[in-house]
């Protein structure tokens, strides 16, 4: 995510719309209906890419946090924050779409026997505590450091958690989901990968959008302070990390 090589936000937004549009067109007109579940199985092309993006976002946040602790540069903390923020939003979407799918396929909104579902919920609950953690620490620098330690700990936790939950369930219950490597026909596989690419683009675009929004609002408040040092500083959010001066995304 080095600054200059990335295409502009506008280009990325158009690319996201194009790829996601193509993905949805493929979902509805190209990919065949599932023999078993019929039309409802098509939520798979939305649900699974969203969940994968959320988990990758959490891991990316851990890497940014390691860099933040190593270098002390607050920009990495901002990136880590935005990654987790987007991960939690995508995670909410993944839980909702997963619940809809479970209701349609198995007749229940929630199924405890499905390890991926349960693992995802636990990871989601852990990352949901990221906000109260940031919120309850006032000193900005300390907040950034503590948030980074949390992000690294939670990043290490994600694979371990999936392992433990899988172990708890797989003894009794076979895997019921058809995952990408589960012998899908090529049309479905292709559609899935296009959807995945679209969701990944959406994730990165939204991240960059939030990053540049933070940069801009930080710059505005800096300028406002420079114009009128008497006026109270307009801080956008008490949770959001401080954005360093003179830094591009």
């Amino acid at each position, binding site marked *: 995510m080095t600054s200059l090589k990335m295409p502009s936000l506008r280009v990325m937004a158009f690319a996201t719309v194009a790829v996601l549009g193509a993905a949805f067109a493929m979902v509805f007109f190209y990919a065949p209906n599932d023999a078993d579940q019929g039309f409802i199985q098509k939520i798979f092309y939305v649900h699974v890419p969203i969940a994968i993006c959320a988990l990758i976002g959490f891991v990316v946040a851990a890497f940014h946090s390691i860099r933040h602790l190593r270098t002390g540069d607050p920009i990495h903390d901002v990136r880590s924050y935005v990654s987790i923020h987007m991960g939690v939003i995508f995670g909410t979407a993944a839980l909702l779409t997963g619940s809809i799918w479970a209701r349609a396929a198995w007749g229940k909104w929630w199924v405890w026997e499905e390890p991926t579902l349960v693992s995802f919920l636990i990871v989601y609950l852990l990352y949901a505590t990221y906000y109260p*953690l940031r*919120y309850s620490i006032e000193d900005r620098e300390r907040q950034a450091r503590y948030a980074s330690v949390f992000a690294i700990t939670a990043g*290490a936790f994600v694979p371990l958690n999936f392992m433990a939950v899988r172990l708890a369930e797989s003894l009794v219950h076979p895997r019921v989901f058809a995952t990408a490597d589960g012998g899908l026909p090529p049309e479905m596989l292709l559609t899935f990968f296009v959807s995945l690419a679209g969701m990944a683009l959406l994730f990165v675009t939204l991240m960059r959008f939030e990053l540049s929004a933070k940069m801009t609002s930080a710059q505005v408040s800096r300028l406002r302070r420079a114009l009128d040092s008497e006026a109270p500083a307009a801080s956008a959010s008490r949770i959001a990390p401080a954005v360093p001066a003179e830094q591009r995304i």
Partner: protein
Amino acid sequence: MSAVRVMLVKDLRVELRTLQSLPAMALFAVTTFVIFRFGLDRTSLEGSLAAGVLLVTVLFAALLAINRLFVAERDEGGFDAIRLAPVDPSALFVAKVLALLAYLAILEVIALPVFAAFFLDDATGLLPLAGIMLLLDLGLAATGAVISTIGANSRARDLLTPLVLLPLLIPLMIAAAGATEPLLAAGGPSYADVGQWVLTMALYDLLFVLVGYATYEFLLED
């Protein structure tokens, strides 16, 4: 190494003189067992129900100690003293993990026999269970020391620590429950599948001891 010993001895001595954590933990555990006796309306437990009652009780008793772990450091300026002293900040982490381990071990020396007397018809599973408990304690202590430091330095204090710690402990509790269940099965302990759970717990302990040790100095910086 000597810094670790000094801080550990200090913690244990403070606990011995004030008796702030341990009696509360033991009392909490025994009371919780009594509540479970009436809540479940059962006078004897086995298998997964026994594992659940025991582990939930130990977990919440541990939270009491974890919440109080850094109270002295926060209120009496212990964090500043560590920052000023020419010692590796990770020494504080190691000392606190060891202190928590000691508290939890003492808690279980009291709670396990009481649990067996209250609920178990057959106490032969208790000896191997002690090993499982030790692995559980190490995981609780490692994650507890890190999260308790964060909680102690935050505004929310006692609220934040359990909030962040509980989801973080879920895999450990899953593995501990998986290992405890066959040991407390009706008709004597069995050892089926205990091995994989012990491995999972050991992996969890190793991971979070390493993560805690590696990141702890950043929690003390100021």
